């Protein structure tokens, strides 16, 4: 019995699909959600989000947000999310450096907040990409 998963960001609906299991990084540690889980609302932290469907695993990098779990439905409200295999580690690294540079340049608070958000996102992407590499090597 699958469970309906929806991943949405402020910009768009990223994914809407029936899946078998979701493993998410929460503030209390990683949790695995199967169908007919009890209702739950939890805070997501930056990390790797696994979705398992028909014994196939898809990985996403999520940079924080919330997860709402109902017996037959999971909604993930993500700050930013992308498929792990679409992450370009070099590009993420460049984005991280650019964001750090801008933060150290001591600009106005407005630019700082944007740079901070970008930095957080880049760091998540790098972390997830590295995790994937390590897994492949094993």
């Amino acid at each position: 019995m699958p469970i309906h998963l929806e991943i949405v960001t402020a910009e768009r609906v990223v994914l809407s699909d029936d899946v078998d299991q979701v493993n998410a990084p929460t503030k209390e540690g990683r949790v695995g959600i199967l169908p007919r889980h009890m209702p739950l609302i939890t805070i997501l932290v930056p990390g790797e989000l696994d979705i398992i469907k028909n014994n196939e695993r898809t990985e996403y990098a999520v940079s924080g947000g919330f997860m709402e779990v109902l017996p037959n439905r999971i909604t993930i409200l993500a700050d930013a999310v992308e498929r792990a295999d679409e992450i370009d580690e070099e590009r993420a690294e460049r984005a991280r450096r650019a964001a750090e540079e801008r933060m150290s340049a001591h600009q106005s608070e407005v630019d700082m907040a944007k740079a901070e958000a970008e930095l957080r996102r880049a760091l998540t992407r790098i972390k997830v990409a590295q995790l994937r590499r390590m897994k492949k090597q094993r």
Partner: protein
Amino acid sequence: MASGREIRRRIRSVKNVAQITKAMEMVAASKMRRAQRNVLATRPYADRLHDVMSELTSRMGAAARKGTLLDVRTPVKNVAVVVVTPDRGLAGSLVSNVLRRVGSFILDQRAQGRNVETYAIGKKGRDFLARSRQNLAAEIIKIGDTPGLADTLGISTNIIEGFRQGRYDEVYMIYSEFVNTLVQRPAVKRLLPIEPPSGKSEGKSFDYNYEPDQSEVLSELLPRFVEVQLYQAVLENIASFYSAQMVAMRNATDNAKELVRDLTLSFNKTRQAGITNEVSEITAATAAME
């Protein structure tokens, strides 16, 4: 009456204008559709956030709100207002409608003895605030046609911080609400303190488990609610801008076409008058010779 050649030149130039405005109309129409889609795309996120928030706040007393972004403070001494406008004009009365609203809002707040600090998203609002020597705390300009949430975080983070530290007791935003293609309304909305959603989510109340706990989930949730509200206002402003521009350009095209018609008529009249004149001269000359 102007000479035939002069009128012909004017007809040509008006036709050129009509071509340009027609092209601008079509560009605005396609950008408007895209902007409308972007506005709709934020709804699922905002609606879920809204539902979860109403779950959490419905059982909350005034005491529990203290120290959160829901805290209503009296008396209100310091307010901030975020002015969301387009970067460009050529959109009919859209910009001036919003700016008029901004002006009366600021005057009204001052009349109540409140200090007003302003933030600007969009060049038109920035210029207005700078010109009228308002206290401009920060600005974001050239945000583009499809901004991401991160592009607006600069200001939302700032106002949230300001509210937490007590620099602001209330924060408002003023923007062009997109009602439909023909109607855009200047809207004033309070961002902070957050108005707890009163609409009970249609009875589908679940007994959620909160991890780590309710108050922590709420404290993560509330800033996002502010962020997404401001982001939605920015997107609506873009949709409003392109609709207004489309309509303004359509009117301009219609006016130009009418002008061409009028000019063509007077051109023909001049021509006709010239011919009549010549004929009568010739007739008169012939008559004189006989």
